[in-house]
């Protein structure tokens, strides 16, 4: 089955979710592009958007319509060529409307799994629940005569395990988008030895057409991205817990969050990142990964405690940030949760004290935003870290320890065979987590 044919019948499971909706958008646009090729004129392309939530699907269709319009507006030059033979479509506006109609016509929002029984390719983006994934894969595969391929978006569950338990005979691979899929360029591709060569080739071609950066990861729970993020989180939590011996919970969380953001020139601090992903999700990913770790314990009592108290973070359906470790107003942290008070305390009430404790920022410091998009990024980072290396403030010490640990984690991912090489680890952190520099670096001496 050729590329175009494979993409004629596709289903996305969990299509109304944050990841699913992005995958659906990208796939719908790719399928529409194929359907417009002269050789595909007259062929039907069907993309089932499968989700249990009718409300979610209604929201998905609105999201799709708006996003397809934005995409169309950006590729108007191509669209005018694509619709050149449509003499009735003259103006940009007319062509854009027609394009939106054509893309939306491919998508069938449904709540029943049966629609996937005739698909050639199935993207899975449901909850990170091994048992549920296995059950659904098995059900579809038993009822689908096409021997479909399964592309799972799992960020932590080993693919070989899903393959074995669902009895898929190697027709599954990990195609791990980063959040949000429509924006983030990184895809972690996790293949297993049972995969056919045609399946891997297809995955690479599909990723290329979506203009994604593919980083291959070996089939170890958590892969590269979460392999780093989870361990980085454990380190941050441990550092905060050490500080808690002398400082309050909120002060400790604030200081580690500030060190991991400002001192390390990252886009957000570790506790904000945990909130962004969701405390519940981070906890779950750790639980999935932990059984496979022989020498480490990827578990956090603190995350369990907050989860049990109902503090979960994550995002609302409109993309706004829910409160977690931190409380947010217009996306900015304004408070920190105090488990003793079971309420948030205002950051402004103690931040100054903590900033003094951490010590002044290096004179050459520039925030992530000013560094990451700067053409002289490498020079800026070098001079900043050169200065940081010579500093002995509390903040500098925490930052150096943090960077050293991040470096160890990166090397560990290579040494244990999760990643093929240092560059792959760095690429994942640069493109998937928007870090300004990879964890395997020589900045700290």
């Amino acid at each position, binding site marked *: 089955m050729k590329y175009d044919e494979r993409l004629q019948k596709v289903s996305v499971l969990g299509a109304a979710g944050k990841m699913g909706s992005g995958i659906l958008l990208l796939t719908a646009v790719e399928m529409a592009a194929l359907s417009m090729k002269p050789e595909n004129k007259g062929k039907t392309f069907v993309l089932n958007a499968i989700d249990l939530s009718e409300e979610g699907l209604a929201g998905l269709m609105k999201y799709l319509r708006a996003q397809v319009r934005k995409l169309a*507006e950006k590729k*108007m030059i191509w669209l005018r060529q694509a619709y050149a033979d449509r003499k009735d479509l*003259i103006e*940009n*506006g007319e062509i854009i409307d027609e394009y939106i109609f054509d893309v939306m016509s491919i998508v069938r929002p449904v709540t029943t799994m049966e629609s996937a029984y005739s698909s050639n390719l199935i993207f899975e983006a449901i909850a990170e629940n091994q048992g549920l994934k296995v059950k659904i894969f098995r059900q579809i595969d038993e009822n689908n005569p096409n021997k479909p391929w399964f592309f799972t978006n799992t960020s932590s569950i080993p693919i070989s395990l899903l393959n074995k338990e669902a009895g898929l005979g190697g027709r599954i691979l990990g195609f791990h988008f980063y959040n949000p899929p429509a924006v983030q360029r990184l895809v972690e591709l996790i293949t297993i030895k049972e995969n056919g060569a045609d399946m891997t080739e297809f995955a690479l071609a599909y990723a290329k057409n979506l203009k994604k950066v593919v980083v291959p990861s070996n089939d170890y729970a958590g892969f590269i991205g979460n392999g780093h993020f989870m361990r980085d989180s454990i380190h941050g939590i441990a550092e905060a817990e050490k500080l808690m011996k002398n400082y309050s919970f909120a002060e400790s969380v604030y200081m580690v969050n500030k060190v991991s953001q400002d001192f390390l020139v990252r886009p957000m601090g570790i506790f904000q990142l945990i909130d962004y992903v969701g405390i519940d999700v981070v906890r779950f990913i750790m639980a999935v990964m932990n059984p496979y770790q022989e020498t480490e314990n990827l578990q956090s009592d603190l995350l369990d405690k907050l989860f049990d108290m109902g503090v979960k973070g994550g995002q609302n359906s409109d993309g706004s940030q829910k409160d977690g470790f931190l409380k947010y107003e217009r996306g900015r942290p304004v408070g920190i949760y105090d488990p003793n008070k079971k309420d948030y305390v205002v950051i402004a009430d103690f931040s100054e004290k903590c900033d003094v404790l951490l010590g002044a920022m290096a004179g050459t410091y520039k925030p992530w935003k000013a560094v990451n998009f700067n053409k002289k990024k490498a020079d800026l980072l070098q001079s900043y870290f050169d200065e940081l290396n010579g500093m002995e403030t509390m903040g500098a010490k925490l930052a150096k320890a943090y960077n050293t640990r991040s470096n160890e984690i990166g090397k560990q991912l290579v040494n244990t065979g999760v990643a093929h090489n240092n560059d792959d680890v760095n690429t994942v952190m640069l493109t998937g987590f928007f870090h300004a520099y990879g964890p395997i670096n020589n900045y700290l001496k």
Partner: protein
Amino acid sequence: MNRKIYMAAGYNTISLGTGRKEFHPKKPRPGLEHYINEAGKGTLEQIGGAKNVDESVIGNFMAARFNNQGHLAGFIPMIDEGLKFKPSIRVEAACASGGMALITGIKNVLAGADTVLAVGVEVQNTMKAIYGADVLAGAGWYQRRKDGHAYFFPGQFSDRAGAYYEKFGKERTRKGLSRWYRNAIENARLCPTAQECHNTMPDPERTCMKMEPNGKFFVDNLNVLDCSKVSDAASAIAIMSEDGLLKCGINIRDAVEVVGFATSERDITKNPTDLTQMETIKDAAHKALKKAGITIDDLATIETHDCFTIAGVLAVEALGFAKHGEGADFIYAGGTARDGKIPMNTTGGLVGWGHPTGGTGVHQAVTVWEQLTGKTGEAQIDIPADKPYGLSINMGGDDVSVVAIVYKKIV
């Protein structure tokens, strides 16, 4: 001319759009009414009020699509109740609508009116540029729209630039275009109402030079800095007879005399004869100069229609400041700078001040009037005693409708 014609009491609103600090694409903005009102009142206040106005003309290109609003003549009495029941007319000639409003006003004065209020307005930020491109494409022939570029007019002038590069050399031309851009930005910084007034780009010329045109994302032969921006603005000016000046209490030294004007039209359904020349601009400008009885050597300043930088080069050649193929060199050598041989677009022109399409022609007249009467503030240039003349060239479409007016300083 059977009567002397004057212009005075000019007024420009700000040119709002990307670049100005006040502009935010997602926040509500003033509409057509606001701009017409502000500009109209700005002129009325200088001429003793609406009672002194005999007739009004409003130039506008495409409010019917940008703002879903036709029938703009009806907005003139909104400016001031004193304009109720007085004649008002709306004129349209694409981006030369403003210039055509001036010509209509001049003809009204020649026909007996003493004071005509001329307003030009366009409010274009009501839609994203990709849809605005459809609206502006109305200045071309609709039968050609299907084959045109997504950004229709940038596409047209990109073709002109491409032909020019091929004939006379790309590097050399881009140098001239980049200098034109620099002049536009530097001049706009001196004018508080200009869209690029807040521009802080350290080296505009180098930035423009380094920005290689890329047809994959925009057009083949021009970059975005080569283009005028999307603007919301209005301008107004009073066109008067000698009696009009007296009635309005305007000191004649605060006015300019219109000593020559011409409009010229090319067949919109035909392609330009030569992409590297603007023959309609050439025709109109020289007719206006001839009527004024002067040559280009008598001009102290020119406002020319640089909707794209390449249009600046072609205008320089059409006017005769440089030979065909040497316009870019003339600009690069500083010929059009504010202290050059012929200062052009001294408050930024369309690239720097802004291009509210239907308002541009009136804005040009206001700028020339300001320069010749010493009212340009920081952007004021020296007007030599032996060169008391200014010229404005306002173009609609791709060198289709052109209005050229020659103004004289009164000493």
